[in-house]
């Protein structure tokens, strides 16, 4: 119990004193996971909407692939992204390995299927005739898609939250493609694992608490937007 208490006290000390290393790690976590979520939102919302609104051969198979992708193990993603950006890999010439950019790529691969899958489900849950009603109101196809997305905005925000939650808390891919380099690719999850390995439980708990506060804050903001618009 003392250990946990010490950890919580340490967390508050680190936050209140504005420890520069912890601050940098937190900001980097936010920047990497935020960028990955943003990119995944663009990809996922577009792809999910497109799959929901079109009929084509193999659609059911594709939906199964997307749903499977929602549960992609981060270490598997880390492994394949590492192979791709390894010096001798297909994208090795880009020199991405052990960079924040590589972490963004890996986290995007994790978050995109989550956001696509939730978007797909959200769009499919809209009344079937709503699409016809919007077209009957005189909408062009582009206007129709926009209005459908507006109508599904609450579950779409849930998709963004699920995507962000999936990447801010993952460790496997980040450590494999980022390498946990101090001051460069060290994020909250990789730092927590490292401090735990060193036996610095108080610091590890402190980082964990900061991670929780960060995840809660971002989700609180998104929830406030979601519920505010839903009223």
């Amino acid at each position, binding site marked *: 119990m003392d250990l946990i208490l010490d950890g919580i006290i340490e967390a508050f000390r680190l936050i209140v004193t504005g420890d520069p290393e912890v601050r940098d790690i937190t900001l980097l976590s936010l920047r990497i996971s935020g960028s990955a979520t943003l990119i995944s939102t663009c990809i996922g919302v577009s792809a999910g909407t497109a799959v929901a609104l079109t009929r084509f051969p193999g659609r059911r198979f594709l939906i199964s692939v997307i749903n499977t992708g929602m549960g992609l193990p981060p270490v598997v993603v880390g492994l394949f992204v590492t192979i791709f950006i390894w010096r001798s890999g297909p994208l090795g010439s880009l020199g991405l390995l052990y960079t924040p950019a590589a972490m963004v790529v890996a986290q995007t691969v994790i978050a995109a299927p989550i956001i696509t899958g939730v978007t797909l489900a959200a769009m499919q849950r809209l*009344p079937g005739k709503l699409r016809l009603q919007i077209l*009957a109101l005189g909408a062009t196809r582009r206007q129709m898609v926009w*209005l459908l997305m507006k109508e599904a905005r609450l579950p779409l925000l849930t998709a963004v939250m699920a995507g962000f939650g999936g990447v801010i808390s993952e460790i496997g891919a980040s450590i494999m493609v980022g390498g946990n380099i101090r001051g460069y690719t060290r994020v909250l999850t990789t730092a927590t694992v490292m401090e735990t390995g060193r036996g610095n439980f108080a610091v590890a708990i402190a980082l964990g608490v900061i991670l929780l506060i960060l995840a809660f804050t971002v989700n609180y903001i998104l929830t406030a937007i979601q519920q505010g618009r839903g009223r």
Partner: protein
Amino acid sequence: MSRPVLEIRKLAVTRNGMPALDVPDLSFAGGEICALIGPNGAGKTTLLLSLMGLVKGAAGEVLYRGERVEPGRGAAALRRRMSLVFQEPLLFSASVYSNIASGLRLRGMARGQVREGVERAMDLLGIAHLARRRAQALSGGEAQRVNLARALAVEPEVLLMDEPFSSLDAPSRETLIADLERIIRRRGITALFATHDRGEAIRLAARIVVMNRGVVAQDGDPNTITQYPADEFVASFMGTETILAGTVTASSGGVMTISVDGGAVEAAGTADAGTAVTFCVHPENIVLSDGVPGTSARNLFRGRVERVVPMGLFRKVYVRCGFMLVAYVTGQSIESMGIREGKEITASFKATAVHVIKVVDKK
């Protein structure tokens, strides 16, 4: 005669390899109020959607003032001259004002024009007090009024409605029908509405198109459809239950005698003896009386009341007189004549009330 607003030419729609709609030729004039009536699966909704160019893969043509309406690019321009109202209000998760404004905003109208259009539509439907309410907080009747206001706000030349009143309770339906009728007639809107309620169709429409299994079974004014149905389906759907098959045994002076199972009926018309016919008698044309009625009706039958079914202001009375006759009687007549199950009664109708639906064959 001016060109119709909407024309259908050889329209055919198939679903899962089965024909869903097959309409060779149908047109609607400006200002016409027409009811599409038929059971579920008759093709009413498919027809309305086709008129809006919202059915993919439809063969044939739909013309709006001579311009072809078809799904795909460019269709929005023609659709913007029409409005479509579904049975479910399908309102957006937004305020009533935003919902009514949606069609106008899609047309890129300026904020002031949108406000004017919304206010005008809300006044028409008597829902100005709901402007700030969330659409999801409305009652069924209010939501359907908002739905209609949204459709009317864009001032359509053609208003298509798919069973717009069927989800409403009776009082809401009555007031909404009355308001809608006033608006449509005053604005000269061409209105087509699908329904399976013949009362609604007769009340609102000057023309009824009866549909069954994707084809037009009959197209005419309410009186023709009701009194002179084209076939047994139309007769039955429009409320005629006395549909009998028989054989002409004699024909002279414009009156023929038709022998049916359990008796003989005299009908206006001529046919050779031996001709097999199917005919019907509309329930409003059958008169029930206690004794021998003072009437010139050629058909007089003594029978026994088998069943009395309440239906609003009227009662449907089934009289067994060798064959079954079904008549509509007011509640007051039921009381004054003491009509009840098992009572002996006289049923009468004129020869001209007998409508021969089809001549089956000739011996």
